[in-house]
Each structure stands twice: as C-alpha cells, then as structure tokens.
C-alpha cells in the first residue's frame, strides 16, 4: 500500500474518532449546556434534604440556574447546610425561598427558588433564610392514613 493512501486512511480514522468524541461531548453529554463561567456561592439550611445530591440542579421557574456544590451536616443545629453555586448572570432577592422538589414521582431531587420581592439581592457568601424541606413520601402517606383513621373514628 502506498504511503499517501495509508496516511489518508489513518487520517480518516483519527478524524472520525475525534468526531465520535465531539458527538459524545456535545450531543450526549452536557458540555454544550454547561457554562463553566462565573458563579457565586450561597448557603441554605434545610431540616431535611431528602435525596438531594451534590451536583444536583438548582432551578428557578424550571430553568437551571445553578448546581449544588456541597452538602454538610451541622452538628449544632442538626440541620443540613447546602452550598449552592449560582450562575453569576442571575441574581435573586434576599427573601428568596429555597425548596427541595422532586422532578416527577420518582425523579431526582432539585432545589427550586421561589423568588421574593426584596430590593436587596443575594451576594456571594449569603445564606437563604427561608427554606422548605423535602417532602418525604412515607410521612405524607402516614399522615394521610392517620387523618383517615381519625375521620373514621369520629363518624362511628
């Protein structure tokens, strides 16, 4: 086989190999949507984070505006301290409420921002005052069952 043809075939092979990598990065992975731009950190304390994970999404109005950077347990107040990296393009009022929601019935959990009306904005290092913990399905069901039982008892 001539050298030029061999070079051509190897060049073709390397090119489609890299094309496959680019396909994986852009079409399959989240490189296209991930902005590695500036972020700022804010903290929020939750009584119960449920199944929230590090790198979980932080959404406002359903749009991803940040990521969960760190989850720690505060041994003094027995709460979970969640550090959130928010995209620097977005600022939120100081009275924003952070809630832990579930996408779908069995989906993964994310933090939702319910935006308030304060004129002051959250800065890097601030913490969110009002939070709402994860809804634990078992608690909800047991509450429902107890209420049912109590209702049934009254009727008799």
């Amino acid at each position, binding site marked *: 086989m001539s050298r030029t043809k061999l070079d051509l075939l190897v060049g073709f092979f*390397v090119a489609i190999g890299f094309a496959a990598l680019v396909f994986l990065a852009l079409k399959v992975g989240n490189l296209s949507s991930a902005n590695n731009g500036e972020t700022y950190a804010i903290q929020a304390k939750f009584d119960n984070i449920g199944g929230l994970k590090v790198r979980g999404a932080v959404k406002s109005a359903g749009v991803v505006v940040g990521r969960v950077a760190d989850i720690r347990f505060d041994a003094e107040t027995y709460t979970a301290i969640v550090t959130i990296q928010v995209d620097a393009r977005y600022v939120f009022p100081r009275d924003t409420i952070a809630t832990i929601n579930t996408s779908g019935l069995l989906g993964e959990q994310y933090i939702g921002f319910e935006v308030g009306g304060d004129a002051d904005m959250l800065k890097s290092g601030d913490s969110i005052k009002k939070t709402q913990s994860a809804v634990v399905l078992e608690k909800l069901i047991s509450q429902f069952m107890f209420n049912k039982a109590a209702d049934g008892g009254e009727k008799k």
Partner: protein
Amino acid sequence: MDNLVVRALGALGRQVTTRIWRLGYASRFFIAILMASGTSFRRIHLTIREIYFTGVLSLIIILVSGLFVGMVLGLQGYDTLQRYGSTEALGVLVALSLVRELGPVVAALLFASRAGSAITAEIGLMKATEQLSAMEMMAIDPIARVVAPRFWGGVVSMPLLAALFSAMGIFGGYLVGVQLIGVDEGSFWSQMQASVDFRQDIVNGVIKSVVFGVIVSWVAVFEGFDAEPTAAGVSGATTRTVVTSSLAILAADFILTAFMFSGI
C-alpha cells in the same frame, strides 16, 4: 511423605517466583519501550502504519458490535423501564452504560482479540524467524523499530475506537428506542444530556480506554517479544495475550470504576 510436602511447597514457590520474575521482566520491558519511544518517533511513519493495522482495520468489528450492543441495550432497557412507566429514561440508560462501562470495556476486549493477538503473532513470528536477531546484528534496536511503534499504535487507536463504539451504540439505541419502538425523541436526547456529565462520565470513559489501550498493547508486545521461538510457542503466546489482557482489562476496570464513581 516428607518428600511430597517439600516438593509441593517447592512447586508452589516456583510458580510464585516465576510469576513475579515475569512481571518484573514485563515492567523492565515497558520502561525499555518508553526509553526507545523517542528514537521510534523520529520515524513517525512506522507508528502511523501500526495505527492503520490496529485501528483502521478494527473499525468494522468495532462499529458493527457497537451498533448491535446499543440496539440490544435499547430493547432490554425499554422492556425493563416500561414496567415503571419511565421509558423516557431509555436514552440515559443507553448512554450511561455505554459511555461509562460498555464502550471502553467491550471495545478493549474486541481490540485485544482483534489487534492484540495479531501484534503478538507478528512479533513472535519475527522472533521465530530470527528477524529480530538480524536487526540487532545490523545495530537496529528491535524495540525501537518493531515494538514501540506497535505499542503506541495501540495506545492511540484504543480511545478512538472506544469513542466510536460508544457513539455507534448510542445511535443503535436511538434506532431501536426512537425509530422502532417509538420513545419520544425529544425526551430521549434531553434526558440523556441532562444526566450525562462531560467530566464525570465522558472524560472518565476516555481515561479508562487509554488505560486499557496501554494494558492491551503492553501485554501484546511483551508476549510476542517473550514468545518461545517455535510454532507452538507463538501460538501459546497469542493465546496468553488474549487471556491475560482480557483479565487485566476487567480487573483494571473494577479498580478504575471504584476510584471514579465511588464518591457518587
């Protein structure tokens, strides 16, 4: 009785020392390859030729296997997911299993049997026909001229083949899931993109395939170079290449996975 125990212990000890001696020899051989690489890269065309033999000629088997593995994942994944009513997650299932595990591992296993065995047989036969000795007579370092280009050819080809395998598999999963079964195309891709992380999943998959490329190429060139210079010796060395590199790939995969994904 006493004699039997002594002989059994001796045999066990000999097994262990032989293994360790071979491992040490293989490690010194690995360092010798790295030392000779500079000389070998001055004639880069030799390495390009080996990329052709190991990479380009493995394309067909890698692409076809990837397509079928992806299609099977699509069928099996759909079958399980539809019980929980979450068939939209099919894209996530196909993409994550391919990018994290099946792509690098299956491509490396195919690569070991397709290209690794060929490298071993070629070098072993060169040794059996005394071509390597002839090179040394002419003051040509056989490690720089024969071994290093084959090693680097394998190391370069392997990650590219694994990426092609994964891409082809995802395409196969798309064909079965979206085109054949009728999973919603939008949620197939968007859920996939939301769950597959570039650094965590794709880069780790590429790192795995590079490590597997080094392992397969190293085992292949070492077994060939170390082969007994007879017909039976070359065939035994070829078999050992496939067995050893397959086991090493699976063991290394476990170790790498434990390091990469244990934190999640």
